[in-house]
């Protein structure tokens, strides 16, 4: 199956559309970094205005780690849309182009093709995430330097020592890869159902928006299904930045407050990936190729 994975990956990166997502992420991150570099101090003052009277914060609040956190909060909501552009086009785009029938006359089974296409789309997704990590984390660290990470949550603040931050980002990006792979799998499923490019892309984005709204609405009727929705779990990368504290409220270095929540979220996301990909395989195997 290796040759068809190679070919599918080659095809993805030969298409100009692929680079839209990389360009969009770079543009957004660079604009935000430039803004914060020029006017970061006033932004930091704005962030701290409510607690300046109760806390004295020493050191550099607006450092590379905080910038990365701000960027992830902003971007990890939108990156799924960019992932959908490619994933939701993987099968339907070929059906629309008419090349799907050429591929399916080669000595590889439909199951192999679907899996190879999913793996190629996953490679794209992971590379997009690595690109995001490079710009949001490493570039921010280089431009703004590093220090302790000071986060303001809704009703408490978190202070993580500088040397205890980097591995949390590694964990957060690994977690984000599961979230984005779930979107990839969903886009892929939509793609297996259609013979045109636009429909599955719109359907994937609509599904993400729809389920995100269900996940965030605090209506008791939806409470029973919320734990099973992938959108409920997609943003749980933030759990890596909640740490345990001692009885005297001192942060425990290297700890995560709710590891079980992260594990549970990963399980839910992986189950969704398996379900979406299995459904895609089943649909394509049954399908008459009429395009």
């Amino acid at each position: 199956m290796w040759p068809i994975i190679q070919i599918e990956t080659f095809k993805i990166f030969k298409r100009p559309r692929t680079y839209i997502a990389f360009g969009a992420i770079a543009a957004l991150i660079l604009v935000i970094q430039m803004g914060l570099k020029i006017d970061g101090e006033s932004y930091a003052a704005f962030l701290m205005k409510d607690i300046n009277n109760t806390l004295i914060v020493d050191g550099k609040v607006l450092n590379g780690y905080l910038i990365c956190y701000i960027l992830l909060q902003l971007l990890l909501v939108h990156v799924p849309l960019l992932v959908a552009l490619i994933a939701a086009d993987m099968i339907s785009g070929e059906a629309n182009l008419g090349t799907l029938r050429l591929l399916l006359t080669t000595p590889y089974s439909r199951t192999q093709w679907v899996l190879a296409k999913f793996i190629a789309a996953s490679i794209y997704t992971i590379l997009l995430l690595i690109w995001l990590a490079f710009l949001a984390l490493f570039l921010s660290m280089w431009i703004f330097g590093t220090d302790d990470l000071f986060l303001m949550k809704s009703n408490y603040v978190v202070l993580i020592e500088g040397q205890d931050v980097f591995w949390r980002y590694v964990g957060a990006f690994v977690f984000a890869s599961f979230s984005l792979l779930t979107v990839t799998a969903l886009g892929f499923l939509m793609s297996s159902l259609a013979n045109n490019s636009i429909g599955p892309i719109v359907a994937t984005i609509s599904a993400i928006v729809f389920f995100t709204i269900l996940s965030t609405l605090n209506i008791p009727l939806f409470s029973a299904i919320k734990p099973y929705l992938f959108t409920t779990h997609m943003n749980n990368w933030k759990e890596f930045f909640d740490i345990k504290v001692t009885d005297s409220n001192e942060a425990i270095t290297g700890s995560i407050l709710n590891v079980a929540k992260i594990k549970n979220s990963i399980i839910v996301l992986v189950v969704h990936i398996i379900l979406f990909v299995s459904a895609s395989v089943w649909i394509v195997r049954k399908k008459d190729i009429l395009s």
Partner: protein
Amino acid sequence: MSVIKVHELSKNFGSLQAVSALSFEVQAGEVFGFLGQNGSGKSTTIRMLLSLIYPSGGSIELFDLPLQANRNQIAERVGAIIERPDLYPYLTAKEHLQLFAKLSKQKISKEQIAKTLEQVGLSLRSADKVNTFSLGMKQRLGIAIALVHNPDLIILDEPTNGLDPQGIADIRHLIQDLAKQEGKTVLVSSHLLSEIEQVASQILIIHQGKKVAMGPTQTLLDPNKAIIHIVTQHDEQALSIIGISKYAQNIMQRKDGIYLSIATNEIPALHQFIVAANIPLLSFELKRSLEDYFLQITSMQ
């Protein structure tokens, strides 16, 4: 040896029966012409031969192996183009061949890729992206893709679509060479029936999903039989007179005149009969090409 063996093949799309109880065999090394009007079930049959569509009934064997159980093994020995030459606009001609060479599971050299491009007349455009190609060039590239892995069976669905007269002639020669010099088996469908007539040794005609005629081209185009196309000022009157004569068998009226199927040695007598009967004759034309045969036989169904 039969390369293709189709038995009682059928395909339904809902209530529409696209192919019905179709049986035929294609022998190794022959050029098999597959004829039918648009919507007759040709492409559906070809797609079933390539496992793109699943049959509703019947069986397909390729190289004496049941298709469904041996699909991948069989696919290594088959090259095909299906209807339109749909390709990746962002890849070059050479990249297409490299890609499909890799997919063939065979070791294909750069020289073989270059040779295939030359075979279809695309050597000079090998580095150009497909989005700069004309329809005819895309068709040539589609054929090159079908040939690049040196398959034993080549299935060409409407291979001359979009080609200019020179291109059509080139493809005709290519098909003939593939069969005669390289011993390939070629199944070719086309709406240009005269093209099939010139290359195919066997012909199958289907109409509304059913086989209506099959046999060697020479037999179907028996030189001792002819089709006469008659146009008169009063076709109804002519039909009533001819209809009670000894020529009444195999007579058919169509919008463009009357068609009669008779032995060639009876043609002068028929002409004399019409003149003697004072039928106002506008045209009396001998037709014997496959196209006329095809039109006649499908209209009679």
